């Protein structure tokens, strides 16, 4: 659980920095309001993933639920961007899609196995 929590924090931090960088570059290049809005939502999703990772790390109440919701939101946002506005890098997109799937599978297996840290 601790390793997964740390990985979630790292991925959340990476995605947050990457999407902020992309947002700044887009604003400088005049990419358009719609793209900037989509990227702002992506920053929010990445921050939520980061928060989910922190919650898992400090083992707060409902940590697994927070991380699960963050992973689902992150998956939808990054998959949506990849499907309709694929301007993020391949690594950032595949991480934004693949990692939430892995996290959700981990949380599901953990709760099914009755692990106390995940069910709290």
């Amino acid at each position, binding site marked *: 659980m601790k390793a997964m929590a740390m990985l979630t924090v790292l991925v959340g931090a990476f995605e947050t920095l990457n999407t902020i960088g992309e947002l700044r570059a887009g604003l400088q290049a005049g990419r358009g309001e719609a793209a900037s809005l989509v990227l702002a939502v992506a920053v929010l999703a990445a921050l939520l993933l980061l928060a989910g990772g922190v919650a898992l790390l400090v083992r707060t109440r409902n940590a697994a639920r927070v991380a699960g919701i963050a992973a689902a939101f992150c998956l939808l946002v*990054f*998959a949506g961007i*990849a*499907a309709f506005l694929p301007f993020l890098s*391949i690594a950032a997109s595949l991480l934004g*899609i693949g990692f939430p799937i892995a996290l959700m599978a981990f949380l*599901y297996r953990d709760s099914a196995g009755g692990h106390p840290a995940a069910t709290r």
Partner: protein
Amino acid sequence: MRVVRGIALAIVLVSASACIDATRVNDTCTWSDPVAGALDRRRSRDRDHLRQDAQIAWELSVRYSDTRYRHAPALARPLRRECRQAVEDTIRARHAVTAQDIRTATVSREWWIDVVAVFLPMLGLAVVGTDALMRRARGAFDGERRVRMLVATLLLVAAIALAVAGVTQYWAMIVESIRLRDEHVADRGTVLPSAVHAGLTMGVSFLVCLVPAMARFRRREPRGSALKL
């Protein structure tokens, strides 16, 4: 495992067979063409040649700007425009075609390659992935009403389809970079069929994911029988 290896090999071979002509690309924006004379757009061979010319013109402009300003798009863009304009002028003069002909050739695709190398593997992955996920998700639906199960299944399928459509875009770019022998696809990503028809890609992904999901849904015997409806 043998099937997966076979499919991977087939994709590499198909992509490689449709690669850009390496003898005609360079980073100095120098045009070379073994074929001279007017092209007849009614002939498939001539249309193919013009499509290749348009593809090479785009590639030359990308390589020309990349060798100078790879990480400065604002500086690279004018160079790219300048090179492409010069090359397209040469194509127009050499083959007696119009600017509109070149624009049409630029966005035209060899559909069978996109279907075989991009869409079929991704749709196959969608079917296998959905089936595996639905098999595992079955336990989570135990004891739920059938209508709730159906709604949950549809939402799950929509999420899987969205992920598949997203991964398809990047797989299409990877295949395109193999075909162009250039890891920088640049703005050519905008003419890929999966990007031009993003909504259609998403819709087809949803339908393809729905088939194994519904098969699992129907096969399943819910607790409490049909009275729970």
